[in-house]
């Protein structure tokens, strides 16, 4: 039996410890799963979490992997804070990549200073537009945004598949489902560190992601918009009395999270791929949900959470190569981590007592006896 009683105040150390403990427990359970699967648990954990970051260029690649996760999760934080469940970031990311790709492929001769801003804008608008569908259907027809945004992800996957196999396919691609390569002005360049040169795949989009997370943190924590979002999530009734419009907040947070996902799609393609293809995302839109929760819906913490989750992703690759382990192990890890985080949230908010059933009954009886005694005394 598990009994919960709400905590009066939540100590800061507990708040900070929760994700750490959740990660530690995930590692323990992960080691157990590796053991069951017949791998040496320590070697597997080493491959998963140490090997991928043992050189400076690998650490740079960790940031590259975390880049789309950080951008998307920074946007999702707004939606989840407002209790709007946008789980279609994957589709919004694809639409962002397509919109940016449309600009890059239609006007390949645009000069760099025009091309980049135009693509960024197009990417954000593409994701925003895709996010507006569930938002408007929710505010207008009261439909469930979870189901609509998810269904639209399946539609987006099919849509990009059709465009790169059909109208946008490069005639010179020998039948491969690929668009032409973007012009140089449409590509995000690698970072040249003074004295070091290029480090792994590190590109300027990573800097953009960090700035984006900072901006999200500022807007959420320091602006009236952020305040509205938080009030509508925590106390919708109070928000309505204050004159905030639930519909408007829904639309705004869907616009922010959709736009962020679209931006991530644009960055991912322009920095790492250079052309559109059927698979431009590898589930980043879904993984970012975990990042947002690991960060406890705080955009600054999203940066760290994005790096942690990206590490698990890279670890999956590394374990696959070194130990011939299935890549899907990463998915199991992500699921367990999310479970641990959610349970950790409960330990944060409540005093949790876990006891055997008969002892719980005993305590219940005693409480009842106390109460009766109190009644007779009064």
């Amino acid at each position, binding site marked *: 039996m598990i009994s919960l009683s709400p905590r009066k105040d939540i100590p800061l150390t507990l708040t900070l410890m929760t994700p750490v403990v959740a990660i530690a427990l995930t590692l323990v359970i992960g080691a157990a799963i590796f053991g069951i699967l017949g791998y040496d648990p320590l070697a597997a954990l080493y491959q998963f979490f140490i090997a991928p970051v043992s050189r400076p260029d690998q650490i740079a690649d960790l940031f590259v992997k975390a880049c789309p996760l950080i951008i998307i999760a920074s946007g999702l934080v707004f939606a989840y804070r407002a209790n709007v469940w946008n789980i279609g970031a994957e589709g919004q990311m694809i639409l962002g990549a397509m919109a940016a790709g449309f600009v890059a492929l239609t006007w390949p001769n645009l000069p760099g200073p025009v091309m980049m801003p135009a693509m960024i804008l197009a990417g954000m608008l593409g994701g925003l537009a895709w996010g507006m569908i569930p938002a408007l259907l929710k505010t207008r027809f009261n439909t469930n945004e979870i189901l609509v945004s998810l269904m639209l992800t399946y539609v987006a996957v099919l849509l990009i598949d059709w465009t790169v196999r059909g109208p946008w396919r490069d005639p010179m691609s020998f039948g491969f489902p690929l668009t032409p390569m973007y012009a140089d002005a449409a590509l995000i360049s690698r970072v040249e560190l003074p004295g070091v040169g290029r480090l792994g795949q590190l590109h300027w989009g990573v800097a953009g992601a960090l700035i984006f997370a900072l901006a999200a943190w500022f807007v959420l924590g320091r602006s009236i918009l952020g305040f509205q979002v938080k009030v509508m999530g925590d106390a919708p009734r109070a928000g309505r009395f204050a004159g905030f419009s639930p519909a408007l907040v829904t639309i705004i947070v869907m616009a922010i999270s959709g736009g962020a996902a679209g931006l991530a799609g644009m960055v991912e393609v322009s920095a790492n791929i250079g052309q559109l293809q059927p698979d431009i995302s590898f589930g980043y839109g879904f993984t970012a949900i975990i990042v947002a929760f690991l960060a406890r819906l705080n955009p600054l913490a999203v940066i760290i959470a994005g790096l942690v989750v990206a590490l698990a992703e890279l670890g999956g690759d590394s374990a696959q190569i070194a130990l011939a382990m299935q890549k899907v192990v990463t*998915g199991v890890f992500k699921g367990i981590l999310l479970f641990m985080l959610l349970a950790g949230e409960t330990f944060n908010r409540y005093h949790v007592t876990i006891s055997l059933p008969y002892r719980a009954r005993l305590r219940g009886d005693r409480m009842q006896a106390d109460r009766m005694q109190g009644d007779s005394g009064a």
Partner: protein
Amino acid sequence: MLEDLILTVLMTSVPLVYAATGELIVERSGVLNLGVEGMMLMGAVAAFGIAMVSGSLVLGVIAGGLAGMLTAALFGILVLGFATNQVATGLALTIFGAGLSGLVGAPLIGHAIEGLPVLRIPLLSDLPTVGKLVFSHDLMAYGAVILVAAVAYFLKRTRAGLVLRAIGDNHDSAHALGYSVLGVRFMAVLFGGLMAGFGGAYLPLALTPHWAEGMTAGRGWIALALVVFASWMPWRVLVGALIFGGITIMQLAGQARGWTVPSQFLSMLPYLATIVVLVLISRNREFALANSPACLGRAFHAGK
């Protein structure tokens, strides 16, 4: 030809009926489990694995149901025991189920099994047309109809069904009357998992006799939409599942007949149809929410 088409439509709707009916009971008790997709995948992989190893399809079906139930138990402990956020926990369950089923199922890829046999009923199965359409299905397809009837009877005509609905509509009152809110909800969640597991099991055992990673392809989510479509009434689940089965098959039939529409657009149909249906149902608030459990998605803990 047409008979075959209708037969495929019926088969396509079977897994949706199981998963959606299970979820309907879960939601009627006031719990929103968004992990249907994950539970179905676990059911599918367990069913295929056990059926392949043991050679027994019945054992496969049972294993599928149990796997779904076990996955649901994890959800139940977190959501009911630890009062975690139901939406987030359901998403986690889907991510977890997709990952674990892929991991467990990796060695099963590329193998094939003999699908569920048609259960022939003497005389009836030999009738022209009707015999083929109504009396020539496998055990699980008949089971789906029986399940809907049983759940409809349970909810409307039994005391336990009344208690379940009471808990879904007002958990505080039900608790005050002495009913175990969390106990009943846990049972409902387990039942939902069992049914999602059965629904998942039907995919590799009957529909496409092999295992592929993520083979549910969003059916778990469509099942969730079906519950809304059915406005929490069991018989309407059956109707909805048939409509979705029809739309899914329409795209295949369209491809076979050489429709000029690109195949990707035909494949979008079930997802787009889900959205359209959700809009049509949800826009009429009174109809949509008439049977909606008032406590849906709200956490309950006794120690207030």
